[in-house]
């Protein structure tokens, strides 16, 4: 780590020592990867999507490989927010990294209660998941219209005592509208993109590969779409943007920063390379050293058009 390089970013009140965050759903609650690298390295960890009560999730198979991408249909399997608070936060607090609680609900009331509960828990920010394509109720149905987003975000805002990140779905006609709705309703930042609804078929068996028929696409395949959306959204809103979708290394992360992201999240790449998060931080540092950039914030939105 080069000492003259400043990697700190501030995401609407959430201070990160570096802009690389583990994306929700790829990283569990951090325990497993703690055996692969020092979690202290990470800017933050967005934990597995939480709901008020435990959820079993969708029937397997829950993953399919597609060209340069994967489809997943986990469907928010999680132990519920209370077990998270009791068992997982103490573990995560052992590390010097931001804890971001990713929260979902079936109804506006559930979202409110999640934000209320998490505001009193020892987390650094709350990421409101309005974009999971793998559950039938709530979530995506709120997230795919400006009205729905405004409704949920303004309802939870009064309970939020932590920076509120609103996670957006790419499965919409105009993501800037949705982002603006989140901003107007009081979001401190937005994160994008969640997965893109897709499908894989096994021609031999003539059946869908996923137990849930459809799933969410992530990984390098979606990078150009994610990059475009981050670019559009960061021009449309004033709050910070957290970019993700297919980031695998430092160069990818730099592209998102240039497009306007203030931080990045990485999910799928970690399945391929468990060191992807750490190597991305190193790659950002190397790029900054090579290009004489002292503060990572200088890169944000630095695209020359």
């Amino acid at each position: 780590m080069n000492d003259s390089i400043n990697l700190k970013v501030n995401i609407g009140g959430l201070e990160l020592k570096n802009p690389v965050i583990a994306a929700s759903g790829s990283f569990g609650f951090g325990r497993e990867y703690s055996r692969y690298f020092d979690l202290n390295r990470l800017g933050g960890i967005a934990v597995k999507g939480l709901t008020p009560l435990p959820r079993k999730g969708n029937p397997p198979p829950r993953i399919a490989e597609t060209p340069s991408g994967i489809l997943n249909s986990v469907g928010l399997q999680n132990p519920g927010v209370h077990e998270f608070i009791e068992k997982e936060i103490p573990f995560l607090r052992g590390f010097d990294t931001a804890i971001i609680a990713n929260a979902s609900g079936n109804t506006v009331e559930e979202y409110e209660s999640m934000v209320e509960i998490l505001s009193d828990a020892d987390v650094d920010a709350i990421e409101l998941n309005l974009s999971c394509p793998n559950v039938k109720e709530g979530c995506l149905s709120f997230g795919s219209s400006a009205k729905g987003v405004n409704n949920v975000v303004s309802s939870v805002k009064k309970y939020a005592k932590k920076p509120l990140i609103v996670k957006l779905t790419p499965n919409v006609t105009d993501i800037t509208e949705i982002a603006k709705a989140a901003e107007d309703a009081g979001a401190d930042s937005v994160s994008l993109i969640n997965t893109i609804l897709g499908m894989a078929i096994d021609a031999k068996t003539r059946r869908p590969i996923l137990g849930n028929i459809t799933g969410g696409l992530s990984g390098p395949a979606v990078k150009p779409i994610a990059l475009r959306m981050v670019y559009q959204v960061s021009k449309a809103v004033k709050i910070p943007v957290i970019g993700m979708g297919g980031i695998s290394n430092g160069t990818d992360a730099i592209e998102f920063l240039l497009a306007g992201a203030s931080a990045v999240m990485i999910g799928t790449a970690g399945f391929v390379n468990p060191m992807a998060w750490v190597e991305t931080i190193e790659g950002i540092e190397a790029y900054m050293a090579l290009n004489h950039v002292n503060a990572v914030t200088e890169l944000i939105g630095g695209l020359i058009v």
Partner: protein
Amino acid sequence: MDTVYKISKAEQLNTDTFLFTINSEKVSKKARAGQIVHVKCGDEDGVLLRRPISICSVDRENGTFDIVFQIRGKGTKILSKYKAGDDIDIMGPLGQGFSLYPKHKKIIVVGGGIGIFPLLQLLKDHPAENKKAILGFRDKSCVILEKEFKQASDKLIITTDDGSYGEKGFVTDILKKELDKEPADMVFFCGPLIMMKLGVGIVKEYDIPCQVSMEQRMGCGIGACLVCVCKTKKGDDWDYTQVCKKGPVFGGDDIIFD
């Protein structure tokens, strides 16, 4: 964490099955029969994910272990092109292997297709006095590792679907016959889901405990992403449990086959 090792031997066992011997002090020391490694095959054609492959046998003295795999799709196809001397990127050993109880004197392993591989090291490691292996293959051309299994077991029964080698028929039928002759203390299953489901039903009739090695598509391979689940019992209720971390080996009674 370093995950790159050298392939010291790459051998083709039949048209589409390959054996790699891989140098790794770490894996060979830690590995238990039934555990898996998660293998990066390559970047061709946009192939991203690692492939889970069982540890087939371990040479703890020389610090090597063997995997055996069959070409099924893109990833294993790429993998089949590796040569001795190549580097291979492997996470492991991962998951829970078979539980071997010293008090068990008579055991039977029942495997089908690519499910036979983890059973070899199990036979080698198990202290039982009487070890039977019942292995099913599609036809004669698919029969592999016969010598190794013969050596590691006291009795080896090979079956083929078409009777072109060994006995004709299903391994579960043979298992029944064997159990009729003589009980066992534990039966280990690894193979197609339907075979394991039938097998678990059979041993239950004889009141014999069993273990099964489950198969599921995987992402992270270490328990973090929750994609590789199978249905397990949890009191009166049930749960989806990660095959990569809590398995691949489960007690036969813990699995809900539906």
